[in-house]
């Protein structure tokens, strides 16, 4: 697949169809790829990669990249196309400046899960069918690919590409995933247990803003948390409230816009399951106001800009959970 993508990138560049190509660049190891704007064939041949660790959602880079002149090609995995579509809907990206290439994805790998399996000093990883051969300083190991899959990919919501100019491989389908199971499990706990759970998780937050800055829905010109005029500017988890507040507001601001791409949890250096907060909102929306998938339909009204006269009251929402 990597070669197919390289060839596509090369042909787009050579044909003059695009001026730049946004893809993943190889790192020091197998797993540390960096999103990169390729400008030359030489660069593409040398360092454009696509494999199980090409995890970053590239769609958000387009907001910045399309401010520049010229066309840019981008490779989008199915879930990335939802983000892309949502950004188009919000007028954050001029469609005409992007050549979107849909590419297949059979789930991305999470290096932290491999490390957690007790592997240290990982220097390279080879994908052999459903197994991974891992070379470490301390010897060779193999791991089942399914044990290294990122959480978001274990619970993949869709293999369908929502928007693209061309597609590599065949089109997939929206999947029936168990992505709300973890939310449900939390809902079943007592409030005390839930509170304890989130205290434990959120108290680890170091407010590095990785979740926010990586989130394809968080593209505000200036975030309310950075804006002294907003009245809620804050920079540090100075109290447990600040931790809660930041994550509630962050998630609330992307209600109906969050496509559940999972970048927030992927990038969190403290492994906080932030996606659960977003998913709770998504689950509530689906249950209260009918199924809604952000990024899927550009003409659909988002749940918070819509209403029904017979919407449920907050008190009924609680009763529903019981």
């Amino acid at each position: 697949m990597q070669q197919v993508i390289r060839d596509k990138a090369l042909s787009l560049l050579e044909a003059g169809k695009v001026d730049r190509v946004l893809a993943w660049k190889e790192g020091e190891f197998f797993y540390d790829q960096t999103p990169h704007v390729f400008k030359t064939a030489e660069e593409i041949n040398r360092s454009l990669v696509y494999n199980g660790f090409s995890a970053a959602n590239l769609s958000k880079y387009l907001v910045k990249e399309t401010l520049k002149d010229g066309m840019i090609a981008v490779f989008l995995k199915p879930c990335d196309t939802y983000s892309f579509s949502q950004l188009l809907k919000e007028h954050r990206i001029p469609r005409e400046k992007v050549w979107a290439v849909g590419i297949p994805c059979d789930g991305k790998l999470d290096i932290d899960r491999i490390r957690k399996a007790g592997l240290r000093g990982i220097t390279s990883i080879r994908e052999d069918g459903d197994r991974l051969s891992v070379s470490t300083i301390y010897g060779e190991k193999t791991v089942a690919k399914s044990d290294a899959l990122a959480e978001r990919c274990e619970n993949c919501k869709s293999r369908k590409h929502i928007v693209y100019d061309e597609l590599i491989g065949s089109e997939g389908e929206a999947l029936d995933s168990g992505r709300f199971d973890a939310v449900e499990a939390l809902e079943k706990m007592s409030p005390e247990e839930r509170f304890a759970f989130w205290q434990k998780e959120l108290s680890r937050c170091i407010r590095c803003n990785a979740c926010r800055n990586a989130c394809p829905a968080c593209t505000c010109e200036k975030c309310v948390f950075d804006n002294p005029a907003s009245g809620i500017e804050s920079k540090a988890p100075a109290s447990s409230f600040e931790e809660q507040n930041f994550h509630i507001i962050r998630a609330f601001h992307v209600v109906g816009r969050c496509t559940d791409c999972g970048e927030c949890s992927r990038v969190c250096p403290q492994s906080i399951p932030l996606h659960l907060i977003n998913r709770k909102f998504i689950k509530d929306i689906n249950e209260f106001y009918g199924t809604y998938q952000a990024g899927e339909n550009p003409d659909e009204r988002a749940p918070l800009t819509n209403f029904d006269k017979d919407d449920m009251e907050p008190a009924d929402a609680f009763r529903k959970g019981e």
Partner: protein
Amino acid sequence: MQRIGVFVCWCGSNIAATVDVKAVAEALGKEPGVVFFEDYQYMCSEEGQNKIKNAIKDYALTGAVICSCSPRMHENTFRKAAAAAGINSFMVEIANIREQCSWIHKDKVSATEKAIVLGRAAIAKLHLNAPLTAGESPVVKRALVIGGGIAGIQTALDIADAGFEVDIVEKKPTIGGKMSQIDKTFPTLDCAACILTPKMVDVAQSEKIRIFAYSEVEAVKGFVGNFNVSIRKKARYVDEVKCTGCGLCTEKCPQKKVPNDFNLGLDQKRAIYIPFAQAVPKIATIDADYCTMLKTGKCGVCSKVCTAGAIDYKQKDTVLEEQYGAIVVATGFNPIELTKYDEFAYSQSPDVITSLEFERITNAAGPTGGTLLRPSDGTHPHKIVFVQCVGSREDGNGCGKTYCSKICCMYTAKHAMLTREKYPDTEVYVFYIDVRTPGKNFDEFYRRAVEEYGVHYIKGMVGKVSPENGKLMVRASDLIEGKQLLIDADLVVLAAAIEPDKSARPLATMLTASMDTNDFFTEAHPKLRPVESPTAGIFLSGCCQGPKDIPETVAQASACAAKVIGLLNKDKLTCNACVAHPDEMLCNGCSTCEKVCPYGAITYESKEFRMPDRTTRIRRVASVNPAVCQGCGACTVACPSGAMDLHGFSNRQIMAEVDAICK
């Protein structure tokens, strides 16, 4: 830092009895920025207001906090006083220590504490107040009336009478509406046509009024004072200017089998027609669905007979763009569809008719020339059953309306009385739930029907009507006698509920005017502003707002006209000062705010900006029309970047109040 004055009102003993006003004033005097404090018996009195004015001047105050009654009482009073003393009227904040403190608490200690907290919140808010000026927008001195029934006619006439131009848009070929179809009016029994047609003529002759008949409103843009309306004039295939209304074409047209909608389909008309003799404008119209020429290209009889050369088969719809300062909705009503009421056999027998059809049958200009005849066989009915509340006052689970249609009791009494008067040999039964006659001379009228004319009023429900051997067998219950009845009627007349015209819903969307669940337009206030829509510049006349009889409709129409005149009389409109405003540098252009604005006050524009990184960028940003924005704040919360804020109730102001209260 503001220089704030705090003024604590005793309100006689209303506040002072439960709140230690001196303690409140002194406590608030210690708050940052407070340079003056005072308490007084009646702050709203002239003497009290003078105290405020003097303090503002003497202490160079930049703002005032008044701890008094509800801002709903005296906010304006104090704002005016502040303005008179030379500071912006929006630099006043009220702490409501009467309705929301002294009157609800008995314990003086806690009431005083609470009053101090409320005062602190007001001070905290005031610190963030900025002078506001309401914008102004010019007013186009012309009104649009949508609907040419009696409501529209009356409103138009009154507006024109005040010297303003008015356009009437009527979807039918003639104005006149439902009233033109009615025979007599209750409770005076004068002839509807006799009182309506002179008004129609007045409309036609008024220099201030233009009639766009056979036209519909297609799009509305703009806002109060400045509406841009697209009006579609449907093709009549007759040149309006050339047509003299002689009617020759309507006699010669070979296509005679066109259902006559003016007579509710009880008879037929030609494919080219003038709805009725007194139609305004009196211009022929070709019904394109039936015209042989338009359908096959072969015929052309009307064109041949028309001496004025007015027939134009090639005519197309035209769309006019017009500007208005105010829009009056007078879209009226229709009887509901009765297909769901098959127990009354409306669809099974032509002799089960609606009250409006009954009107046409008894009308001298109607299909029977005014003689009461059964539609099925043209015979004279000897036994007539009137059924009231068909589709009205239902429990909400059924297919009907929950509301009372209001006019049925009276017109049914009228029909019963007129029948008995003209045809004393006819027995008349009226089945009713209640007879509602609140209105001038209404009850007298109903009693005459019962007492003088011998109409059988039976409290009870009609269970079923079944056509049997040319008769209509009416099964009903008499609730007072407690027995079942079976009446072999010749004619059954159903008092169908009335509902807003179907065109009202799409129109409301265009106007961003709100409707209730029954599709009646909502008034700005049910008691105090009954003829205005909450959407500024939209006014309500007649049954589009709720069921009404003719006198009420005309009264409302005139009231509505008065409101329109009041608006058009102004050269400029003062806008709401507390409007939303975006911080363009923060705006992402995502369109979220636009979607929640109930007034269409937000648009997007692409503007060039000098960015902090010294580049120039064209960005899509929100723009609020202050003339339209009513200041609800829906957009401020919808905006994810916090770019949208509300003057007078800004994020930081409200948070400052929160902080002060929770301190």
